[in-house]
């Protein structure tokens, strides 16, 4: 008895050693290319480090952080990114859920619909931005022409400070809504049939079935889908770079693009690093919170 317990711990220890051995190349690489750079960014954020004088000679402590926090444009870009993320996640979810429900209902042509909706998902964001810039050109674009055919005045899609952000949101929806559809459809097709049959016997309407059965059963899938989409939406950079360069003015100046400008246009790496660290803090807090939340559901 004692001997078998001893043998178990020995196997355990060997398992553990083998586990670490197999993990070590990946962990070493992750340490080198992710953890070390993050520390470097933190160290740089405490110094007056610019691309004109790239050295750590002047220690400035929290000066870069204070400067960033007091920078109205930085706060503006954080707020704008939050607005964009909430808008695209919600709109893509609503539209995605509608399409996923429709797709779950049909049998004929399902494979064709599915193949079509996968197309934008695999497209490069740069290409999506380029083709939509082409379509949305105020004079030469096909969209304004089609609008004129049905008697609507041309819209300055990317040149107006009020409209540009909504144009970016629309293009992002076109590009990314399929992500929601694919995941939600996977959830819908895995739902059990019995509750619906029981509800039908009891005379429930389709709407009642949806709110009382589909939504509650889909809750975990919905939450995971929203979370993953949210994480990716925060990173949005390519679309902005291609379509608006943060403009007109600073009306689409998302956080990633603003930090990029601070680093490579203003050449102030120290301040840009401080902003990165603030962004990192926000993302980490969000990750830990969301992870706990997800675990509490399962």
């Amino acid at each position, binding site marked *: 008895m004692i001997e078998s317990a001893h043998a178990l711990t020995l196997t355990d220890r060997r*398992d*553990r050693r083998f*586990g*670490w051995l*197999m*993990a070590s190349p*990946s*962990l070493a*690489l*992750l340490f080198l*290319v*992710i953890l070390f*750079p*993050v520390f470097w*960014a933190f160290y*740089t954020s405490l110094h007056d480090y610019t691309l004109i004088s790239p050295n750590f000679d002047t220690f400035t402590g929290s000066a870069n952080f204070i400067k960033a926090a007091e920078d109205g444009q930085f706060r503006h870009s954080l707020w704008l990114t939050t607005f964009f993320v909430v808008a695209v996640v919600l709109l893509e979810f609503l539209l995605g859920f509608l*399409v996923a429900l*429709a*797709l779950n*209902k*049909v049998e004929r042509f399902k494979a064709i*619909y599915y*193949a079509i909706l*996968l*197309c934008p998902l*695999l*497209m*490069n964001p*740069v*290409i999506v931005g*380029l083709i*939509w*810039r*082409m*379509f949305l*050109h105020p004079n*030469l674009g*096909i969209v304004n*022409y089609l609008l004129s055919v049905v008697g609507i005045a041309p819209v300055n899609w990317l040149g107006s400070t009020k409209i540009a952000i909504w144009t970016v949101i629309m293009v992002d929806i*076109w590009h990314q809504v399929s*992500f929601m559809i*694919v*995941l939600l459809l*996977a959830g819908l097709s895995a739902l059990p049939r019995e509750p619906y049959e029981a509800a039908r016997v009891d005379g429930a309407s389709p709407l009642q079935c949806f709110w009382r059965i589909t939504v509650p059963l889909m809750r975990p899938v919905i939450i*995971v889908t929203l979370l993953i989409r949210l994480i990716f939406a925060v*990173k949005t*950079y*390519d679309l902005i*770079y*291609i379509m608006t360069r943060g403009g007109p003015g600073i009306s689409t100046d998302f956080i990633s693009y603003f*930090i*990029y400008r601070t*680093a490579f246009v203003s050449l102030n*790496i120290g301040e840009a690093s401080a902003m*990165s660290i603030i*962004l*990192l803090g926000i*993302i980490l807090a*969000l990750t830990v919170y969301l*992870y706990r939340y997800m675990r509490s559901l399962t």
Partner: protein
Amino acid sequence: MKRLARSIAPHLVLVVFSAIIVLPLLWVVRVSLTDKLTAYKIPPEIGSIGSMNYSAIFTSYPFTTWFFNSLIVALITTMIALPLATALAYVFARWNTGGVALRLGVLASQMLPPIILVLPLFAMFLMAGLMQSRISLIIAHLTICLPFLSWMLVSFFEGDVARLEEAARVDGATRWQAFIKIAVPVAAPGLLAAGLLGFILSWNEFLFALVLSGPDTQTLPVGLAGLETHAGVEIAPLAAATVVSLLPVFLLLPFLRKHLIKGLSLGALK
């Protein structure tokens, strides 16, 4: 009547939605087949149709170089990331190596916006003299692919595979043999899908490639983005380049469809 309406309504939604997706893509194909002047005509004209834009992108622009750079970077990134991620995902699934903290760390690195990493990587490559090299791009793309693939692959090693391995271990196989001869072959379709997704991630990556590449090492997205700014709006060749750069990704699609959900959801949905 009401039943008929109910069976048609979903198709109506899907047809409208599919049209919104397909029509812009068809329009790009159409523009790619017209000559430069016709491409700008509003209202649109049919004009002459031909493949001149497709030959133009290969002769007037360094399209071949961009294509080749993207291919090399994406292939090598995947070849490095896939075995490493497989090993990491396996030990996560089998022995929970490093516990929740390590898993959370790998997940968190997947959430990092690339803009946070691009500054330090830029400075590090500058110091190491690796700026504008393909190596720097491969290293940068590993920061995206390695955590992504690790997370995606964990779920492929959970479940029945563990029991098969135990049986093999009882028969005297070593841990390494159980991994390489049983776990890997059983999870092979998943590994293939993960490899394809890793390839696409690298193929489509823009920010790292923009900052770290030089004139000779530009990848396709960076080249296309530059094409647009330098030549004004040369939409006809741009459309042709768009069509060509979409081809590899769509060719991979059939191999990927079955496992796409695991890839997209980082294995969080099973």
